[in-house]
């Protein structure tokens, strides 16, 4: 009986319960947009939405978790920077719902991009071959799958945790490893323990890989449709994710909008 009660209490105290993050227009990340209404003629800017992960500044973490970064930095090659927000800290997934507002069936794409604490990824800014007009557009970190939807229909979908994990790693491979975006996104790296930069230098171990701190969604419908999405964050450490999400006071979360990745062929 005693074991049962202890088990029951422990179940209630697990710290990796998911937290659902939606836009908070009055919060410190007021420009986030998690509802996109577009059609086939919409400009790219009108097809994009973003949502930040409500990460706390590391100064608000427990000392043990803050010190862990220093300990990890001592373990890796001095040329490798151990980031603040790492893969070990939390898992992300994105839940989305598309509503066809048109009386005709249609097709849409939901693409996922994002940013870590150092760099963002916007494939529309990347020219893979400046010498050619026929080079393919750079791929998104995830998505790019056509999905059919009936007239006035609704379809739900998810970018799963393993897809967001892969996306975070792909962004690292591009920005720290110098990988071509196609190579990074078309290879499965989520079980890798390290990768070596193409330009040479020390291997970057998994423990030093950055986690995404912002998720960007591009919604490309061929008819008038609306996409609503939200983040599902599953923290593995206390004190990394703010309980109030993006409604937290401005000085209690960090809203990262780093410069976008510049591809050099």
């Amino acid at each position, binding site marked *: 009986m005693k074991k049962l009660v202890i088990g029951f209490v422990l*179940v209630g105290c697990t710290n990796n319960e998911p937290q659902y993050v*939606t836009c908070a227009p009055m919060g410190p990340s007021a420009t986030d947009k998690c509802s996109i209404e577009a059609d086939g003629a919409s400009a790219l800017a009108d097809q994009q939405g973003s949502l930040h992960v409500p990460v706390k500044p590391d100064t608000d973490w427990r000392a043990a978790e803050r010190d862990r970064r220093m300990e990890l930095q001592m373990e890796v090659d001095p040329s490798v920077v151990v980031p603040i927000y790492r893969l070990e800290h939390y898992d992300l997934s994105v839940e989305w719902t598309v509503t066809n507002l048109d009386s005709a069936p249609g097709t849409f794409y939901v693409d996922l991009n994002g940013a870590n604490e150092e760099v963002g990824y916007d494939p529309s800014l990347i020219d893979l071959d400046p010498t050619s007009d026929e080079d393919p557009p750079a791929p998104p970190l995830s998505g790019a799958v056509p999905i059919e939807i009936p007239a006035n229909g609704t379809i739900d979908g998810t970018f799963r945790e393993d897809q967001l994990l892969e996306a975070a790693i792909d962004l690292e491979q591009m920005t720290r490893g110098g990988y071509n975006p196609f190579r990074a996104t078309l290879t499965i790296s989520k079980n890798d323990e390290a990768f070596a930069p193409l330009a040479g230098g020390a291997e970057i171990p998994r423990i030093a890989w950055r986690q995404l701190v912002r998720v960007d969604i591009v919604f490309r419908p061929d008819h008038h449709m609306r996409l609503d999405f939200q983040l599902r964050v599953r923290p593995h450490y206390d004190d990394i994710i703010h309980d109030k*999400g993006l409604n937290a006071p401005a000085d209690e979360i960090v809203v990262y909008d780093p410069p976008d990745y510049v591809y050099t062929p």
Partner: protein
Amino acid sequence: MMRGGCAVAILLAAHSAEARPASTGFFAEGGLGAVAFLPPDSGNAAIGPALDLRIGRDLASWLSFGIFLSASNHEATVPPPPQDQWFQLYRGGADLRIGGLSDHFAFFVEGGAGVAMMSTNVLEKVMTLEPGERFSISFHAGGGIEYQLENRHYAFGLAAAAFYAPQFDNLKGIDARLYLRYTYGGG
């Protein structure tokens, strides 16, 4: 008030009838059941299975004090997204139970207070929860019936209680359970 007086009178009358021997003393109960939210929250969370554990002490043959833990699992049926997400409602607290035994059956009413906790903020979307809110005080009241086995230590019971969590936007629900009770002690 009138209704409460009648209930006590019935219980006392029942207690005075010929009753099967039953232990009184420390007791433990384990139950399985279901929790359903009442409107307006019934549209945002489906009815879910529940597990209840309770330990306590009979202060008299007709009065007992107990502490309880309860966990229930619910599918969030909020407008998507999210879709197909589940959350758990944990409740714990203390209560008093008044009852009496008549023949094979015991009847009781109970009421108490405690704390309720939501495992996630999925109901934040429908404003059942405020940002960052996970805990509420909770109150509950209900009643039940127990069937006393020939072994004086054991009884099966069926109980139902309504609960109220004011910090969760006045969340109200019903907890119904079937349970097995073991009482350690003499008759």
